[in-house]
Protein backbone atom coordinates (compact mmCIF):
# COMPACT_ATOMS: atom_id res chain seq x y z
CA UNK A 1 0.00 0.00 0.00
CA UNK A 2 1.36 3.35 -1.00
CA UNK A 3 1.14 5.36 2.23
CA UNK A 4 2.87 8.67 2.86
CA UNK A 5 5.48 8.93 5.60
CA UNK A 6 3.04 11.03 7.61
CA UNK A 7 0.45 8.25 7.53
CA UNK A 8 3.00 5.68 8.65
CA UNK A 9 4.40 7.97 11.34
CA UNK A 10 0.90 8.58 12.72
CA UNK A 11 0.16 4.85 12.60
CA UNK A 12 3.32 4.12 14.59
CA UNK A 13 2.88 6.92 17.10
CA UNK A 14 -0.74 7.90 17.46
CA UNK A 15 -1.47 10.54 20.10
CA UNK A 16 -5.11 10.05 21.00
CA UNK A 17 -5.57 6.31 21.37
CA UNK A 18 -7.15 4.91 24.52
CA UNK A 19 -10.12 5.67 26.76
CA UNK A 20 -10.93 8.91 28.60
CA UNK A 21 -11.64 8.61 32.31
CA UNK A 22 -13.91 11.63 32.25
CA UNK A 23 -16.06 12.01 29.16
CA UNK A 24 -19.56 13.21 28.47
CA UNK A 25 -20.17 11.86 24.98
CA UNK A 26 -19.07 8.87 22.94
CA UNK A 27 -19.94 7.17 19.68
CA UNK A 28 -19.07 4.00 17.84
CA UNK A 29 -19.33 3.67 14.06
CA UNK A 30 -18.58 1.07 11.39
CA UNK A 31 -18.81 -2.69 11.67
CA UNK A 32 -16.50 -5.68 11.28
CA UNK A 33 -18.07 -6.63 7.92
CA UNK A 34 -16.51 -3.61 6.23
CA UNK A 35 -13.38 -4.01 8.31
CA UNK A 36 -13.43 -0.75 10.27
CA UNK A 37 -14.83 0.07 13.70
CA UNK A 38 -14.09 3.37 15.47
CA UNK A 39 -15.07 4.56 18.92
CA UNK A 40 -14.57 8.21 19.91
CA UNK A 41 -14.90 9.69 23.41
CA UNK A 42 -15.31 13.40 24.08
CA UNK A 43 -14.96 15.58 27.13
CA UNK A 44 -16.82 18.78 26.25
CA UNK A 45 -16.86 21.82 28.54
CA UNK A 46 -18.83 24.93 27.60
CA UNK A 47 -19.16 23.67 24.04
CA UNK A 48 -15.39 23.23 23.65
CA UNK A 49 -13.80 19.80 23.12
CA UNK A 50 -11.36 19.75 26.03
CA UNK A 51 -10.27 16.18 25.65
CA UNK A 52 -10.77 13.44 23.05
CA UNK A 53 -9.75 9.82 22.54
CA UNK A 54 -10.29 7.10 19.97
CA UNK A 55 -10.07 3.32 19.54
CA UNK A 56 -9.98 1.77 16.07
CA UNK A 57 -10.25 -1.68 14.58
CA UNK A 58 -9.04 -1.20 11.03
CA UNK A 59 -6.23 -0.71 8.60
CA UNK A 60 -3.29 1.70 8.75
CA UNK A 61 -5.36 4.44 7.11
CA UNK A 62 -8.25 3.94 9.55
CA UNK A 63 -5.91 4.23 12.52
CA UNK A 64 -4.09 7.30 11.17
CA UNK A 65 -7.22 9.17 10.07
CA UNK A 66 -9.02 8.55 13.35
CA UNK A 67 -6.04 9.93 15.27
CA UNK A 68 -5.85 13.01 13.03
CA UNK A 69 -9.55 13.71 13.51
CA UNK A 70 -8.93 13.87 17.24
CA UNK A 71 -6.02 16.26 16.75
CA UNK A 72 -8.09 18.54 14.52
CA UNK A 73 -11.04 18.54 16.92
CA UNK A 74 -9.13 19.10 20.15
CA UNK A 75 -9.78 22.52 21.72
CA UNK A 76 -12.28 23.42 19.01
CA UNK A 77 -15.82 24.44 19.86
CA UNK A 78 -18.26 21.81 18.72
CA UNK A 79 -19.66 23.78 15.82
CA UNK A 80 -16.20 24.34 14.30
CA UNK A 81 -15.38 20.70 14.90
CA UNK A 82 -18.43 19.72 12.87
CA UNK A 83 -16.95 21.64 9.94
CA UNK A 84 -13.80 19.51 9.73
CA UNK A 85 -13.74 17.95 6.25
CA UNK A 86 -12.19 14.87 4.75
CA UNK A 87 -9.92 17.21 2.77
CA UNK A 88 -8.59 18.61 6.08
CA UNK A 89 -7.70 15.10 7.20
CA UNK A 90 -6.14 14.03 3.93
CA UNK A 91 -4.10 17.26 3.86
CA UNK A 92 -2.76 16.66 7.39
CA UNK A 93 -1.59 13.22 6.29
CA UNK A 94 0.06 14.43 3.11
CA UNK A 95 -2.40 12.40 1.02
CA UNK A 96 -4.14 9.03 1.17
CA UNK A 97 -4.42 6.25 -1.43
CA UNK A 98 -7.74 6.82 -3.24
CA UNK A 99 -9.26 3.53 -2.05
CA UNK A 100 -8.59 4.64 1.54
CA UNK A 101 -10.43 7.97 1.44
CA UNK A 102 -13.50 6.29 2.93
CA UNK A 103 -11.51 5.73 6.14
CA UNK A 104 -11.35 9.50 6.70
CA UNK A 105 -15.12 9.72 6.18
CA UNK A 106 -15.67 7.07 8.83
CA UNK A 107 -13.50 9.02 11.28
CA UNK A 108 -15.58 12.12 10.61
CA UNK A 109 -18.79 10.14 11.12
CA UNK A 110 -17.53 9.02 14.50
CA UNK A 111 -16.73 12.58 15.53
CA UNK A 112 -20.05 13.94 14.29
CA UNK A 113 -22.01 11.20 15.98
CA UNK A 114 -20.24 11.87 19.29
CA UNK A 115 -20.87 15.63 19.04
CA UNK A 116 -24.55 15.05 18.28
CA UNK A 117 -24.65 12.74 21.26
CA UNK A 118 -23.37 15.60 23.40
CA UNK A 119 -25.82 18.07 21.89
CA UNK A 120 -28.74 15.84 22.85
CA UNK A 121 -27.80 16.12 26.51
Amino acid at each position, binding site marked *: *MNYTEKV*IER*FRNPKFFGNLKDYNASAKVGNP*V*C*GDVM*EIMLDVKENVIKNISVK*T*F*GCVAAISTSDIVCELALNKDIDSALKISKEDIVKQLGGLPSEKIHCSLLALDALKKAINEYKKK
Partner: protein
Amino acid sequence: MEVYLDNAATTKVDDKVVDSIKKVYLESYGNPSSIHKKGHDALKLIENSREELAKIINSEYHELVFTSCGSESNNLVLNQLSKGDHLITTIIEHPSIYNKAKALERQGVEITFLKSDKEGFINLEELESSIKKNTKLVSIIHSHNEVGTIQDLIKIGEICKKHKVLFHSDCVQSLKKTKIDVKDFNLDFASFSAHKIRGPKGVGALYVKKGLKLNPLIYGGGQENSMRSGTENVPGIVGFGSALRLSYDVKYVSELRDYMIFRLEEEIDKVKLNGSRKSRLCNNVNFSFKGIEGESILMSLDLEGIYVSTGSACSSRSLKASRVLLAMGLDHELAHGSIRFTLSPENTKEEIDYVVIKLKEIIKRLRGMSPLK
Protein backbone atom coordinates in the same frame (compact mmCIF):
# COMPACT_ATOMS: atom_id res chain seq x y z
CA MET B 1 16.94 -8.34 10.50
CA GLU B 2 15.00 -8.99 7.28
CA VAL B 3 12.73 -12.03 7.17
CA TYR B 4 10.94 -12.95 3.97
CA LEU B 5 7.86 -15.07 4.73
CA ASP B 6 5.89 -14.56 1.54
CA ASN B 7 7.14 -17.50 -0.51
CA ALA B 8 3.66 -18.42 -1.73
CA ALA B 9 3.55 -15.01 -3.43
CA THR B 10 6.93 -15.48 -5.02
CA THR B 11 10.46 -16.60 -4.19
CA LYS B 12 13.97 -15.27 -4.47
CA VAL B 13 15.58 -16.60 -7.64
CA ASP B 14 18.46 -18.95 -6.87
CA ASP B 15 22.01 -18.03 -7.99
CA LYS B 16 22.31 -21.21 -10.07
CA VAL B 17 19.06 -20.33 -11.82
CA VAL B 18 20.30 -16.81 -12.59
CA ASP B 19 23.54 -18.26 -14.00
CA SER B 20 21.66 -20.67 -16.26
CA ILE B 21 19.42 -17.87 -17.54
CA LYS B 22 22.36 -15.58 -18.19
CA LYS B 23 24.08 -18.29 -20.19
CA VAL B 24 21.07 -18.60 -22.49
CA TYR B 25 20.90 -14.86 -23.07
CA LEU B 26 24.60 -14.67 -23.95
CA GLU B 27 25.26 -18.01 -25.66
CA SER B 28 22.19 -20.05 -26.59
CA TYR B 29 20.16 -17.15 -27.87
CA GLY B 30 18.79 -18.86 -30.94
CA ASN B 31 15.11 -19.22 -31.77
CA PRO B 32 14.09 -22.86 -31.13
CA SER B 33 12.14 -22.81 -34.40
CA SER B 34 15.29 -22.01 -36.41
CA ILE B 35 16.86 -25.04 -38.01
CA HIS B 36 20.51 -23.97 -37.72
CA LYS B 37 22.78 -24.89 -34.82
CA LYS B 38 21.85 -21.91 -32.63
CA GLY B 39 18.18 -22.79 -32.99
CA HIS B 40 18.80 -26.45 -32.34
CA ASP B 41 20.80 -25.66 -29.18
CA ALA B 42 17.93 -23.58 -27.83
CA LEU B 43 15.41 -26.29 -28.70
CA LYS B 44 17.48 -28.87 -26.87
CA LEU B 45 17.55 -26.67 -23.78
CA ILE B 46 13.79 -26.28 -23.57
CA GLU B 47 13.34 -30.02 -24.09
CA ASN B 48 15.67 -30.62 -21.12
CA SER B 49 13.46 -28.48 -18.92
CA ARG B 50 10.40 -30.31 -20.17
CA GLU B 51 11.94 -33.63 -19.22
CA GLU B 52 12.86 -32.27 -15.80
CA LEU B 53 9.26 -31.31 -15.04
CA ALA B 54 7.91 -34.55 -16.56
CA LYS B 55 10.10 -36.59 -14.18
CA ILE B 56 8.74 -34.77 -11.12
CA ILE B 57 5.07 -35.12 -11.99
CA ASN B 58 5.34 -38.59 -13.57
CA SER B 59 4.24 -37.57 -17.06
CA GLU B 60 5.73 -37.95 -20.52
CA TYR B 61 7.81 -34.95 -21.58
CA HIS B 62 5.68 -34.31 -24.65
CA GLU B 63 2.62 -33.92 -22.40
CA LEU B 64 3.89 -30.53 -21.19
CA VAL B 65 3.20 -27.12 -22.67
CA PHE B 66 5.15 -24.07 -21.51
CA THR B 67 3.13 -20.91 -20.91
CA SER B 68 3.78 -17.45 -19.46
CA CYS B 69 2.46 -18.18 -15.95
CA GLY B 70 0.22 -20.34 -13.81
CA SER B 71 -2.71 -18.04 -14.51
CA GLU B 72 -2.31 -18.54 -18.26
CA SER B 73 -2.22 -22.32 -17.78
CA ASN B 74 -5.44 -22.14 -15.75
CA ASN B 75 -7.13 -19.84 -18.25
CA LEU B 76 -6.09 -22.01 -21.18
CA VAL B 77 -7.85 -25.04 -19.73
CA LEU B 78 -11.05 -23.25 -18.74
CA ASN B 79 -11.17 -21.48 -22.09
CA GLN B 80 -12.14 -24.79 -23.74
CA LEU B 81 -15.64 -24.50 -22.30
CA SER B 82 -18.46 -22.94 -24.24
CA LYS B 83 -22.12 -22.11 -23.79
CA GLY B 84 -24.14 -25.04 -22.49
CA ASP B 85 -21.13 -26.84 -20.98
CA HIS B 86 -21.02 -27.47 -17.25
CA LEU B 87 -17.91 -26.81 -15.15
CA ILE B 88 -17.45 -27.97 -11.59
CA THR B 89 -14.95 -26.00 -9.56
CA THR B 90 -14.75 -24.65 -6.00
CA ILE B 91 -15.54 -21.46 -4.15
CA ILE B 92 -11.94 -21.36 -2.86
CA GLU B 93 -10.02 -21.44 -6.15
CA HIS B 94 -7.20 -19.07 -7.02
CA PRO B 95 -8.53 -15.93 -8.79
CA SER B 96 -7.19 -17.18 -12.14
CA ILE B 97 -9.74 -20.01 -11.99
CA TYR B 98 -12.46 -18.30 -9.99
CA ASN B 99 -12.62 -15.09 -12.02
CA LYS B 100 -12.30 -16.96 -15.32
CA ALA B 101 -15.19 -19.21 -14.24
CA LYS B 102 -17.25 -16.12 -13.37
CA ALA B 103 -16.51 -14.70 -16.84
CA LEU B 104 -17.53 -18.00 -18.47
CA GLU B 105 -20.74 -17.97 -16.44
CA ARG B 106 -21.62 -14.63 -18.02
CA GLN B 107 -21.10 -16.26 -21.43
CA GLY B 108 -23.57 -19.03 -20.69
CA VAL B 109 -21.33 -21.74 -19.24
CA GLU B 110 -23.01 -23.45 -16.32
CA ILE B 111 -20.80 -23.42 -13.21
CA THR B 112 -21.04 -25.29 -9.93
CA PHE B 113 -18.86 -23.80 -7.20
CA LEU B 114 -18.34 -26.55 -4.64
CA LYS B 115 -18.43 -25.46 -1.00
CA SER B 116 -15.54 -25.70 1.41
CA ASP B 117 -15.60 -27.10 4.91
CA LYS B 118 -13.98 -25.34 7.89
CA GLU B 119 -10.53 -26.67 7.01
CA GLY B 120 -10.65 -25.89 3.30
CA PHE B 121 -11.65 -29.34 2.01
CA ILE B 122 -14.34 -29.93 -0.56
CA ASN B 123 -17.02 -32.56 0.04
CA LEU B 124 -16.52 -35.56 -2.24
CA GLU B 125 -20.21 -36.48 -2.16
CA GLU B 126 -21.13 -32.98 -3.26
CA LEU B 127 -18.64 -33.30 -6.11
CA GLU B 128 -20.05 -36.63 -7.29
CA SER B 129 -23.67 -35.54 -7.04
CA SER B 130 -22.90 -32.36 -9.00
CA ILE B 131 -21.73 -34.25 -12.08
CA LYS B 132 -24.32 -34.09 -14.86
CA LYS B 133 -24.61 -35.13 -18.50
CA ASN B 134 -23.16 -31.82 -19.73
CA THR B 135 -20.31 -31.72 -17.20
CA LYS B 136 -17.19 -31.20 -19.30
CA LEU B 137 -14.57 -30.44 -16.68
CA VAL B 138 -13.79 -30.60 -12.99
CA SER B 139 -11.15 -28.08 -11.85
CA ILE B 140 -9.98 -28.28 -8.24
CA ILE B 141 -6.95 -26.66 -6.65
CA HIS B 142 -4.41 -29.09 -5.18
CA SER B 143 -2.51 -27.19 -2.43
CA HIS B 144 -4.32 -24.05 -1.42
CA ASN B 145 -2.44 -20.80 -1.99
CA GLU B 146 -3.94 -19.01 0.98
CA VAL B 147 -4.57 -21.59 3.72
CA GLY B 148 -2.32 -24.44 2.56
CA THR B 149 -4.95 -27.20 2.66
CA ILE B 150 -4.05 -30.11 0.35
CA GLN B 151 -7.06 -31.77 -1.32
CA ASP B 152 -7.19 -35.51 -1.80
CA LEU B 153 -6.64 -35.63 -5.56
CA ILE B 154 -6.51 -39.42 -5.63
CA LYS B 155 -10.13 -39.66 -4.48
CA ILE B 156 -11.24 -36.70 -6.62
CA GLY B 157 -9.50 -38.27 -9.64
CA GLU B 158 -11.30 -41.58 -9.05
CA ILE B 159 -14.66 -39.84 -9.08
CA CYS B 160 -13.81 -38.02 -12.33
CA LYS B 161 -12.61 -41.24 -13.94
CA LYS B 162 -15.72 -43.14 -12.87
CA HIS B 163 -17.97 -40.51 -14.46
CA LYS B 164 -15.66 -39.95 -17.46
CA VAL B 165 -15.24 -36.19 -16.97
CA LEU B 166 -12.00 -34.33 -17.60
CA PHE B 167 -10.05 -33.38 -14.51
CA HIS B 168 -7.80 -30.32 -14.08
CA SER B 169 -5.91 -29.19 -11.02
CA ASP B 170 -4.08 -25.98 -10.19
CA CYS B 171 -0.87 -27.47 -8.77
CA VAL B 172 1.08 -24.19 -8.67
CA GLN B 173 1.74 -24.24 -4.92
CA SER B 174 2.35 -28.00 -4.80
CA LEU B 175 5.41 -28.27 -6.98
CA LYS B 176 8.40 -29.63 -5.03
CA LYS B 177 6.51 -29.36 -1.73
CA THR B 178 4.16 -32.30 -1.98
CA LYS B 179 3.96 -35.31 -4.27
CA ILE B 180 2.32 -34.77 -7.63
CA ASP B 181 1.64 -37.84 -9.76
CA VAL B 182 -0.56 -37.11 -12.76
CA LYS B 183 -1.24 -40.83 -13.20
CA ASP B 184 -2.17 -41.54 -9.57
CA PHE B 185 -4.34 -38.44 -9.57
CA ASN B 186 -5.90 -39.39 -12.91
CA LEU B 187 -5.27 -35.85 -14.12
CA ASP B 188 -5.99 -34.64 -17.63
CA PHE B 189 -4.55 -31.16 -17.05
CA ALA B 190 -2.37 -29.63 -14.33
CA SER B 191 -0.96 -26.10 -13.97
CA PHE B 192 2.51 -25.12 -12.75
CA SER B 193 4.62 -22.01 -12.26
CA ALA B 194 8.38 -21.38 -12.07
CA HIS B 195 8.59 -18.39 -9.76
CA LYS B 196 7.12 -20.23 -6.75
CA ILE B 197 10.15 -22.54 -6.70
CA ARG B 198 13.01 -20.05 -7.03
CA GLY B 199 12.68 -19.85 -10.80
CA PRO B 200 12.00 -16.75 -12.87
CA LYS B 201 8.68 -14.93 -13.19
CA GLY B 202 6.90 -15.16 -16.53
CA VAL B 203 7.11 -18.94 -16.98
CA GLY B 204 4.38 -21.47 -16.39
CA ALA B 205 3.55 -24.93 -17.65
CA LEU B 206 0.51 -27.00 -18.33
CA TYR B 207 0.29 -30.78 -18.33
CA VAL B 208 -2.02 -31.95 -21.10
CA LYS B 209 -2.64 -35.69 -21.12
CA LYS B 210 -1.59 -37.55 -24.24
CA GLY B 211 -4.35 -37.55 -26.88
CA LEU B 212 -5.99 -34.35 -25.64
CA LYS B 213 -5.75 -31.12 -27.52
CA LEU B 214 -6.54 -27.56 -26.42
CA ASN B 215 -7.62 -24.62 -28.54
CA PRO B 216 -4.93 -21.99 -28.00
CA LEU B 217 -5.37 -18.61 -26.40
CA ILE B 218 -2.58 -17.32 -28.64
CA TYR B 219 -2.42 -18.26 -32.32
CA GLY B 220 0.77 -18.00 -34.33
CA GLY B 221 3.60 -20.22 -35.46
CA GLY B 222 2.30 -23.35 -33.78
CA GLN B 223 4.89 -23.63 -31.04
CA GLU B 224 4.27 -25.87 -28.03
CA ASN B 225 2.38 -28.49 -30.01
CA SER B 226 0.13 -25.76 -31.44
CA MET B 227 -1.35 -25.09 -28.00
CA ARG B 228 0.72 -21.99 -27.23
CA SER B 229 2.19 -20.02 -30.08
CA GLY B 230 4.83 -17.32 -29.72
CA THR B 231 8.60 -17.70 -29.61
CA GLU B 232 9.44 -19.74 -26.55
CA ASN B 233 10.79 -17.90 -23.49
CA VAL B 234 13.98 -19.93 -23.68
CA PRO B 235 15.86 -18.21 -20.82
CA GLY B 236 12.80 -18.48 -18.59
CA ILE B 237 12.15 -22.11 -19.46
CA VAL B 238 15.80 -22.97 -18.83
CA GLY B 239 15.57 -21.12 -15.49
CA PHE B 240 12.47 -23.18 -14.67
CA GLY B 241 14.46 -26.34 -15.40
CA SER B 242 17.33 -25.25 -13.13
CA ALA B 243 14.85 -24.40 -10.37
CA LEU B 244 13.34 -27.88 -10.68
CA ARG B 245 16.78 -29.37 -10.07
CA LEU B 246 17.29 -27.47 -6.79
CA SER B 247 16.83 -29.41 -3.58
CA TYR B 248 13.87 -28.63 -1.34
CA ASP B 249 13.95 -30.08 2.17
CA VAL B 250 10.26 -30.71 2.84
CA LYS B 251 10.96 -32.23 6.25
CA TYR B 252 12.96 -29.22 7.43
CA VAL B 253 10.34 -26.73 6.22
CA SER B 254 7.51 -28.76 7.81
CA GLU B 255 9.32 -28.74 11.15
CA LEU B 256 9.86 -25.00 10.95
CA ARG B 257 6.15 -24.57 10.12
CA ASP B 258 5.10 -26.71 13.10
CA TYR B 259 7.48 -24.83 15.38
CA MET B 260 5.99 -21.51 14.31
CA ILE B 261 2.41 -22.76 14.72
CA PHE B 262 3.24 -24.17 18.16
CA ARG B 263 4.81 -20.95 19.40
CA LEU B 264 2.08 -18.65 18.10
CA GLU B 265 -0.68 -20.79 19.61
CA GLU B 266 1.24 -21.11 22.87
CA GLU B 267 2.19 -17.46 23.28
CA ILE B 268 -0.60 -15.36 21.76
CA ASP B 269 -4.19 -15.74 22.93
CA LYS B 270 -7.31 -15.53 20.75
CA VAL B 271 -5.65 -16.80 17.59
CA LYS B 272 -7.05 -19.23 15.05
CA LEU B 273 -5.02 -21.41 12.71
CA ASN B 274 -6.70 -21.36 9.30
CA GLY B 275 -6.59 -24.47 7.13
CA SER B 276 -6.03 -28.12 7.94
CA ARG B 277 -3.57 -29.47 10.49
CA LYS B 278 -3.31 -32.94 9.01
CA SER B 279 -3.15 -32.22 5.29
CA ARG B 280 -1.24 -28.98 5.09
CA LEU B 281 1.37 -27.62 2.69
CA CYS B 282 4.79 -27.81 4.34
CA ASN B 283 5.47 -24.07 4.15
CA ASN B 284 2.09 -22.54 5.03
CA VAL B 285 1.19 -20.90 8.35
CA ASN B 286 -2.05 -18.90 8.31
CA PHE B 287 -3.49 -17.32 11.44
CA SER B 288 -6.35 -14.98 12.29
CA PHE B 289 -5.80 -12.64 15.21
CA LYS B 290 -9.05 -11.66 16.90
CA GLY B 291 -9.91 -7.98 17.31
CA ILE B 292 -7.38 -6.56 14.89
CA GLU B 293 -7.16 -6.02 11.20
CA GLY B 294 -4.66 -7.73 8.91
CA GLU B 295 -3.27 -4.75 7.06
CA SER B 296 -2.28 -3.10 10.34
CA ILE B 297 -0.45 -6.26 11.37
CA LEU B 298 1.18 -6.59 7.95
CA MET B 299 2.39 -2.98 7.96
CA SER B 300 3.69 -3.25 11.53
CA LEU B 301 5.64 -6.37 10.55
CA ASP B 302 6.85 -4.61 7.42
CA LEU B 303 8.31 -1.82 9.58
CA GLU B 304 10.29 -4.53 11.43
CA GLY B 305 11.61 -6.02 8.18
CA ILE B 306 9.20 -8.97 8.15
CA TYR B 307 7.33 -9.59 4.89
CA VAL B 308 4.02 -11.48 4.89
CA SER B 309 0.59 -11.26 3.26
CA THR B 310 -2.99 -10.90 4.49
CA GLY B 311 -6.54 -11.90 3.55
CA SER B 312 -7.78 -8.60 4.89
CA ALA B 313 -10.12 -6.50 2.79
CA CYS B 314 -8.20 -3.33 3.41
CA SER B 315 -5.19 -4.62 1.56
CA SER B 316 -7.19 -5.73 -1.45
CA ARG B 317 -8.47 -3.59 -4.29
CA SER B 318 -11.98 -4.89 -3.81
CA LEU B 319 -12.18 -3.90 -0.12
CA LYS B 320 -13.84 -7.24 0.53
CA ALA B 321 -12.59 -9.76 3.06
CA SER B 322 -11.02 -12.95 1.76
CA ARG B 323 -13.61 -14.96 -0.18
CA VAL B 324 -11.74 -18.10 0.81
CA LEU B 325 -11.80 -17.48 4.56
CA LEU B 326 -15.47 -16.48 4.49
CA ALA B 327 -16.24 -19.65 2.50
CA MET B 328 -14.46 -21.61 5.24
CA GLY B 329 -16.94 -20.19 7.75
CA LEU B 330 -14.85 -17.49 9.41
CA ASP B 331 -16.76 -14.42 10.57
CA HIS B 332 -15.79 -11.09 9.03
CA GLU B 333 -13.73 -9.98 12.00
CA LEU B 334 -11.51 -13.07 11.83
CA ALA B 335 -11.35 -12.99 8.05
CA HIS B 336 -10.11 -9.38 8.20
CA GLY B 337 -7.51 -10.34 10.78
CA SER B 338 -5.72 -13.07 8.86
CA ILE B 339 -2.00 -13.20 8.12
CA ARG B 340 -0.31 -15.72 5.83
CA PHE B 341 3.31 -16.64 6.52
CA THR B 342 4.86 -18.86 3.84
CA LEU B 343 8.30 -20.28 4.59
CA SER B 344 11.18 -21.52 2.49
CA PRO B 345 14.13 -23.83 3.14
CA GLU B 346 16.27 -20.70 3.51
CA ASN B 347 14.40 -19.54 6.63
CA THR B 348 15.90 -20.37 10.01
CA LYS B 349 14.62 -21.04 13.51
CA GLU B 350 16.27 -17.79 14.63
CA GLU B 351 14.20 -15.90 12.08
CA ILE B 352 11.01 -17.53 13.33
CA ASP B 353 11.97 -16.62 16.91
CA TYR B 354 12.44 -13.00 15.84
CA VAL B 355 9.05 -12.99 14.06
CA VAL B 356 7.28 -14.45 17.11
CA ILE B 357 8.79 -11.82 19.44
CA LYS B 358 7.85 -8.95 17.13
CA LEU B 359 4.41 -10.36 16.45
CA LYS B 360 3.64 -10.61 20.16
CA GLU B 361 4.49 -6.92 20.64
CA ILE B 362 2.48 -5.88 17.58
CA ILE B 363 -0.63 -7.88 18.49
CA LYS B 364 -0.54 -6.49 22.04
CA ARG B 365 -0.20 -2.91 20.80
CA LEU B 366 -2.93 -3.16 18.15
CA ARG B 367 -5.33 -4.95 20.50
CA GLY B 368 -4.83 -2.12 22.97
CA MET B 369 -5.92 0.29 20.24
CA SER B 370 -8.98 -1.71 19.15
CA PRO B 371 -12.55 -1.13 20.39
CA LEU B 372 -13.39 -4.79 19.77
CA LYS B 373 -13.08 -7.18 22.68
